[in-house]
């Protein structure tokens, strides 16, 4: 894991003092709210429906146990005892007082964390595969590059006032768990024909009002050129992205209007000029080596496979067996495993964790996973490096804290934005609907029978809940009668086989929506052929059977 050195600490500490001064000026009335607003937003502080919300960056979703304890401490001291993990691999505190915000930032800085650029029209937290550095299907660990991007983008003097927010994701594995195709820039580590590792560069993906899958502009970019190429993309976007209409300001619209080829041509032109005239950003190989060295593999001394003991434990405990099947993934090292801790208990708000749960996970990370924890864009947590032989003990310990829900990737592992319970942009509530869906499918056996299925829900068109890329997407819309309505999309997915879901028909009321989800699930299960996932079935049979079963009553 990356550890802050004196320079990293200085930068974050200076930011805290700067913000402390700005907050004091605001509280003393020297700064008006509209002058203060952009400043607080740049520190992740939003004014929401009921209170301030602070969004804390968890760079590329990697946390140490000490950092998790610091997050738990903040939840206790400054919030109501819990935090909310988001689809951007960050954590949000929903009950923050303005006068305490500088103290929270100071507490974060002590743990080597910050809230810098978690908001505003700048480069946001870079996200990646939650299994990075551990996954069996990985070409290379993307995190050193994420850290390099984190540093490069932090207080970037040229790119802090972009037309709109900007999100970068990096994936290093064959299976894209980082959803790079729905980011402003998606980077995929690939091997060239000559056997070198570099990046495939995608631009212009994104959800929201105009969902787009990112388009490739470079099939192979040597690693050493990464920052120069990113600067070239950013510069073209900063100069030419639209600023007259907030809904058309993302880079995807610029790529649409120029065409992918023309956009790529401009980027390549700037990229060449930078080298020709010597203003390309510099990163020394020594610095890359310094960063890379900090992501060295942790290896258990005795990591023999779980073997017969594990088999016996699974045979004797069907619940444990089910949890292993859903929540444990293959590690690149024999005898080790990756555990995903579900933050989606039946009937609970997706992504919430109490301070006690955070502490418990920190404790488990220390005992079993080299003190390392990950957050996922599906709003769960990961212990990335455990021994197979420890799985049973981990599962038991998780169970004591209500964290052993065996539903990863299943119908109740719902991605859900905060919605109208907190967010002032929301049309509808999302959390209560997610809770009702998970209660409807509470039976673990039934969930297992249904198999992998992604339900994703957003409270408005901003799509924080990624509804376009869910097997079943739900979007909160204003209904004409003033009630809450949920528009359903089917067939989306966010991985290398990315697709945007299609709207199936009229929106459902809050009373209908859970039944509608159940109808879709039923139609899928009834129609699927041996082992087909939702996408495969949907692509084979099309939308018609789903429409029929959903709207049969409307016909009469």
């Amino acid at each position, binding site marked *: *894991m990356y*550890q802050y*050195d*004196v*320079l*990293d*600490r*200085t*930068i974050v*500490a*200076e*930011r805290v003092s*700067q913000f402390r001064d700005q907050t004091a000026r605001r509280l003393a009335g020297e700064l008006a709210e509209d002058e203060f607003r*952009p*400043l607080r937003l740049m520190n992740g502080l939003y004014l929401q429906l009921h209170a301030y919300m602070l969004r804390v960056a968890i760079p590329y979703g990697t946390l140490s146990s000490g950092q998790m304890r610091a997050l738990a401490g903040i939840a206790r001291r400054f919030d109501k005892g819990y935090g909310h993990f988001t689809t951007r691999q960050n954590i949000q505190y929903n009950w923050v007082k303005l006068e305490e915000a500088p103290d929270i930032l100071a507490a974060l*800085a*002590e743990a080597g964390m910050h809230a810098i650029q978690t908001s505003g*029209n700048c480069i946001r937290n870079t996200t990646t595969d939650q299994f990075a550095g551990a996954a069996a299907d990985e070409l290379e660990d993307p995190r050193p590059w994420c850290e390099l991007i984190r*540093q*490069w*983008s*932090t*207080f*970037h*003097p*040229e*790119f*802090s*006032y*972009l037309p709109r927010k900007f999100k970068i994701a990096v994936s290093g594995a064959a299976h894209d768990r980082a959803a790079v195709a729905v980011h402003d820039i998606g980077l995929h580590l690939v091997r060239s024909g000559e056997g070198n590792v570099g990046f495939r560069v995608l631009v212009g993906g994104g959800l929201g009002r105009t969902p787009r899958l990112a388009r490739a502009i470079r099939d192979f970019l040597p690693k050493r050129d990464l*920052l120069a190429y990113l600067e070239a993309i950013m*510069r073209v976007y*900063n*100069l030419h992205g639209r*600023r007259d209409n907030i809904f058309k300001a993302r880079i995807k619209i610029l790529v649409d209007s120029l065409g992918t080829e023309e956009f790529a041509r401009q980027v390549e032109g*700037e990229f060449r*000029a*930078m080298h020709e*005239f*010597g*203003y390309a*950003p*510099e*990163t*020394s190989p*020594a*610095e890359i080596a*310094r960063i890379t*060295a*900090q992501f060295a593999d942790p290896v258990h001394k005795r990591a023999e496979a779980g073997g017969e003991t594990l088999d016996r434990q699974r045979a004797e405990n069907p619940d444990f067996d089910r949890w292993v099947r859903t929540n444990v993934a293959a590690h690149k090292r024999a005898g080790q495993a990756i555990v995903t801790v579900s933050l989606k208990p039946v009937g609970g708000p997706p992504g919430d964790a109490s301070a006690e749960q955070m502490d418990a996970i920190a404790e488990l990370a220390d005992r079993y996973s080299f003190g390392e924890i990950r957050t996922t864009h599906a709003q769960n947590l990961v212990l990335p490096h455990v021994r197979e032989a420890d799985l049973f003990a981990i599962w038991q310990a998780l169970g004591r804290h209500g964290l052993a829900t065996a539903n990863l990737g299943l119908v109740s592992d719902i991605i859900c934005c905060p919605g109208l319970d907190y967010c002032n942009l929301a049309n509808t509530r999302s959390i209560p609907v997610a809770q009702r869906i998970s209660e409807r499918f509470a039976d673990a056996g039934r969930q297992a029978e249904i198999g992998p299925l992604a339900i994703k829900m957003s409270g408005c068109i901003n799509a924080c809940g990624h509804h376009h890329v869910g097997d079943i997407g739900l979007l909160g819309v204003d209904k004409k009668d003033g009630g809450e309505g949920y528009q359903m999309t089917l067939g989306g997915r966010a991985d290398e086989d990315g697709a945007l879901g299609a709207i199936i028909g009229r929106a459902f009321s809050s009373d209908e929506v859970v039944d509608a989800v159940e109808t879709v699930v039923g139609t899928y299960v009834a129609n699927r052929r041996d082992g087909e996932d939702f996408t495969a079935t949907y692509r084979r049979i099309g939308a018609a059977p789903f429409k029929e079963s959903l709207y049969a009553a409307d016909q009469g």
Partner: protein
Amino acid sequence: MPLIRDNDLVAQDPWVRVDDGAALPEDGTPVIVSLGRWRAERETLDGRNGRLGVVLKAGDDAAELAGDLERLSLVALEFPKFSDGRAFSTARLLRGRYRFRGELRAVGNVMRDQLLFMHRCGFDAYEVARDDALEAWTGALSDFSAWYQTAADDRRTAAQQRGECAAPPLSQSRARIRANAAAASAPPAPAVSCCAGDWAY
């Protein structure tokens, strides 16, 4: 409007901004004109016995000036509002791609909280609205002492400082001294000697 240049308040700005259509001064007063006027009246302007500057609006393309920069002593870039960051990139292009070495002046809505970023992008003069500008400017300059990325200024990046550090004797840059001071006063951070194995994790 107060002008800051080279870390100092300029008492008397020698430059005069001449609007499109307005008469040029008869004497050799240095003038700043719009890109449109520069294109339309290039010969007249060229024939004048005085220094020349052009102001670019946020949407203007720096490439249009690329061939003329030899003849210009000043380029002014307009910031129409706080949130419009195009001029940051235009500045990088002028300094980097087009090698402009004259005065690069920020005009329009020039805010204290952006001065440092402007300086990093290659600006060296700023028309600011408030007359306590110098104080604000020096204040803004000292907000940060370390940076991650290279830009158009000569501030040492964190990576460069780390590199320096590996090869004694140490360069005691201002930022480094401050960094050590900050680390020493930040409570939980262990006392850090500059080169100690702090980066060896």
